[in-house]
């Protein structure tokens, strides 16, 4: 028996559109599914949740076959323990916000008051503690989405499917909820599939990224695989991030071989650090000035992205930098070239994040 999700299936949605994917998600691993509109992301969610029958293939969760049309197996959604946050919420209009959140626990037989207590706790976590008695129809778009999130999480699912759970949220709410979401993903041991349009979200929350285009996975791998070796123009577009794990201590973050100065000094302990490749300046001599982080390194690889050039740096930190073609030519940047890199402390993003996730 293999733990986690092992899914390979095809599903025809219409004459013109077919999804054909293979996904392996071990327990405790978050996979992000990134893809343009109409790529079939929501279709994959529906298939895994048991809401659309697959045409061919097998879906296995923790050793249990959920779908196997060849063998006639099709486990109904309610027995799958697959939690879903739907793209358009689907909150029950006749139930209060609290009843929506309790729905999963109640369905699985929890007593009313225990479910209500757990639901209220979840509402507090998404910052809607005061809205327990409202109807979903009286919520703003963003409030509704947070309720949907709480509802799915409160049901204690064994596999978590999130169909763009943060898309309708505003910037400030989003970063707060992303943190809450990251925490929950950590707390919960099963496989997680996360759909998003936002590469930052994918890179921050996921261990592995699958790029879905027109129903097919065009690239799958770690964030680094996608970032350093994007295989399609769409993937290359997404690959705008340096991502490191580190330990924050206020104004500095220790990222293993190196300590980075950061402007966001609120954090202590394990964090994720992001630096956009375009934010990395490359110098031939040691730079002076405001950039707090400067170090000597060597160009390992040069990639031509068309209008820009991506440089992959070696020790002490595997940093990607993007420069113009003019800069490359002028400075003679090529593999083996020794350079100085400079990154402003204000350009280093810090997000709390722990463990493997």
């Amino acid at each position, binding site marked *: 028996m293999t733990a986690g999700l092992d899914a390979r299936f095809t599903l025809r949605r219409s004459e013109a559109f077919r999804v054909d994917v293979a996904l392996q998600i071990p327990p405790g691993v978050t996979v992000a599914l990134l893809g343009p509109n109409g790529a079939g992301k929501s279709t994959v969610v*529906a298939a895994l*949740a*048991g*809401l659309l029958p697959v045409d061919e293939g097998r879906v296995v969760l923790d050793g249990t076959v959920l779908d196997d049309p060849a063998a006639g197996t099709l486990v*109904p*959604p*309610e027995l*799958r*323990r*697959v*939690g*879903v946050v*739907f793209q358009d919420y*689907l909150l*029950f*209009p*006749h*139930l209060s916000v609290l009843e929506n959140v309790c*729905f*999963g626990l*109640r*369905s*699985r037989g929890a007593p009313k008051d225990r479910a209500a207590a757990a639901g209220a706790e979840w509402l507090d976590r998404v910052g809607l503690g005061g809205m327990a008695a409202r*109807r979903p*129809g009286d919520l703003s778009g963003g409030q509704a989405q947070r309720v949907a999130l709480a*509802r*799915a999480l409160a*049901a204690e*699912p064994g596999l978590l499917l999130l169909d763009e759970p943060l898309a309708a949220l505003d910037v400030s709410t989003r970063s707060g909820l992303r943190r809450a979401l990251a925490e929950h993903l950590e707390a919960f041991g099963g496989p997680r599939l996360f759909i998003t349009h936002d590469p930052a979200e994918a890179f921050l929350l996921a261990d592995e990224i699958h790029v879905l285009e027109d129903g097919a996975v065009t690239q799958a791998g770690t964030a680094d695989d996608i970032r350093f070796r994007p295989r399609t123009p769409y993937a290359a577009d997404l690959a705008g991030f340096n991502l490191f794990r580190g330990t924050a201590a206020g104004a500095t973050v220790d990222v293993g071989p190196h300590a980075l100065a950061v402007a966001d000094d609120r954090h202590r302990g394990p964090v994720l650090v992001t630096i956009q490749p375009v934010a990395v300046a490359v110098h031939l001599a040691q730079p002076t000035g405001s950039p707090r982080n400067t170090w000597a390194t060597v160009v390992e690889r040069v990639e031509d992205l068309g209008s820009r050039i991506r440089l992959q740096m070696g020790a002490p930190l595997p940093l990607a930098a993007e420069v113009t073609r003019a800069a490359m030519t002028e400075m003679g940047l090529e593999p083996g070239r020794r350079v100085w890199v400079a990154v402003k402390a204000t350009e280093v993003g810090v997000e709390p994040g722990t463990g493997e996730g």
Partner: protein
Amino acid sequence: MVLGLLGLAVFVVPLAGLLARVPWARLPALLGGDVVTDALRLSAVTSLAAVAISAVLGIPLAWLLARVEFPGKRVVRAVVMLPLVLPPVVGGSALLFALGRRGLVGEALGDATGLVLPFSTLGVVVAATFVAMPFLVLTVEGGLRSMDRRFEGAAATLGAGRWTVLRRVTLPMVAPSLVAGVVLTWARAFGEFGATITFAGNLQGRTQTLPLAVFVALETDRDTAVAISLVMVAVSLIVLAALRDRWWGAR
């Protein structure tokens, strides 16, 4: 707007006609006898029983029609609507042919259980159910079909089995249709006459509902007939007007 008021006139004018003939002064005397009391009690009991049976049998049938694909579905739906089309007297005859003591099924039923439907209160309930149940089935089916099924999917992913989904999501979400269906069914059962007199007979206290009492009164004393009709109108207006607006389809 104007058309709407004209539409309302269709109902108000005959009602006014009826009210104009009510012998108001003699009303207490006309309604005092136990014929009216018996009939009122019987009407209440049988119409509510018909609603209950219709709900128990009709909701699953509506669900089958709305949610399960099977061949011949259109014919099944057409058969369900037949009692609407058949003149009640014909419907009553059909019930006699089927469930009378010599009927297709009635004979076997009688032999097996000793149950005789004609001339029994149960027969009244059967007749009322036959003519009224289509309203419940058709209204609930419509509600089920117009509901967004993805809510049921969402409930299922939250661990709700078929039964829980039905009870906590589907039925509450079609509650307006359900209530409308129940009201239509009750109203039809309450007013049922032709099938009842043909199938169940017209025995005071046992099968003589208000409409049958009106019929008997018409043979003898028109004023009594009008008075009993007034009772029916009053009861229905009270029941129907008690329904809140929100039961008519809105959330």
